[in-house]
């Protein structure tokens, strides 16, 4: 499994960048090319069903990448982690895009 690239600078990622990072992390969890996931998404109407443990792994990768906590205990209830779309919404909710990161990595 390849490592995720280093943390970005002072501003949080925009929506598109975050969505890309989530898809990239899911591809690593599934050991699949990102393109394969995109094809699967296109074939299923734009979203992907995911397992809650896949979602946890994606969250862990993004937390490491961005050095911040992106999910609370309540966020990790399996009902919250059923699809790529719901996972993306969750992370967006915990991290409104464009907000600055402090030096410690958390707001």
């Amino acid at each position, binding site marked *: 499994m390849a490592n995720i690239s280093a943390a970005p600078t002072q501003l949080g990622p925009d929506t598109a960048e975050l969505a890309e990072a989530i898809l990239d992390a899911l591809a690593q*969890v599934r050991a699949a090319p990102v393109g394969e996931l995109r094809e699967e998404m296109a074939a299923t109407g734009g979203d992907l069903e995911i*397992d*809650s443990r896949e979602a946890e*792994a994606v969250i*862990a990768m993004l937390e490491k990448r961005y050095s911040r906590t992106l*999910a609370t205990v309540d966020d*990790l*209830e399996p*009902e919250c982690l059923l699809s790529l779309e719901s996972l993306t919404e969750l992370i967006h909710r915990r991290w409104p895009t464009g907000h600055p990161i402090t030096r410690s990595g958390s707001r």
Partner: protein
Amino acid sequence: MMAVFISEKDVSTAWVAALDTLVASGGDAVNLTVAIADPTAEQEGVRQVLDQFIGERRRMKRNSVERVSTVANTLFPSAWYLPERLGADAAEHLYELERNTRPVTRRRNPRGTYFERMVAWPGPKKEEFNQLDQAVRRLRSARERGHQRGHEYEVGLAMPPDEIAAPVLVAGKDRNTRGFPCLSHLSFSLLHGVVHLVAVYRSHDFISRGYGNYLGLGRVLQFVARESDFPAGELTCVSASATAEITRGGAFGYERVERLLEDCQAALGATP
């Protein structure tokens, strides 16, 4: 009620038979032993009935009971194991995801998961030991030497570096009288070239946990067998104390538990 033995073909049939036995005996039993010939197989109708029951409970109170898939995932996160895609690297991918995801997983499971205990058993000096990997290596070695049986590896409550055994309960650390870990021990055996698994629970809530436990343990057995290139055999699960959760565990009440049992039996009967 004293010791009971049930032997069935798949997870669903075995679980329904065990629940039936528990309900018939007033709700509780000791030394309930359930053998499942194919612990990766289910009857879809039974699973649907149980999922619906648990879904209703979770809508009323989310923390009251876990989903079947969640329970199974605490024993083996099957979404992380990709043998068809990764071949010989699949096990390392699984172990690496467990290590990297552990800080997130521990938010919902502060004391860790059963799978974590299997692959990162806390040693006396806080070093981690991968018991599943050890079991796989031992079995591979047996295969290379042409062994078809492995009683010589099987010694009860062994320390993990020495035997094909996977203790879950950590003496001196796990002092809770209820809750994690209810699963105390796993033991793999090789006979006639087939790998079998025995799991021992000190306490077993059959509606909240039993079905998902059987499924998860079946996946553990399948993983070890596949990685050691032996066929997977039977899962036997010994529950030192088992409850149908009429008044204990989830305390669902006699009428609701009996109705759940009847619905599951009907689903089994409807299976072609």
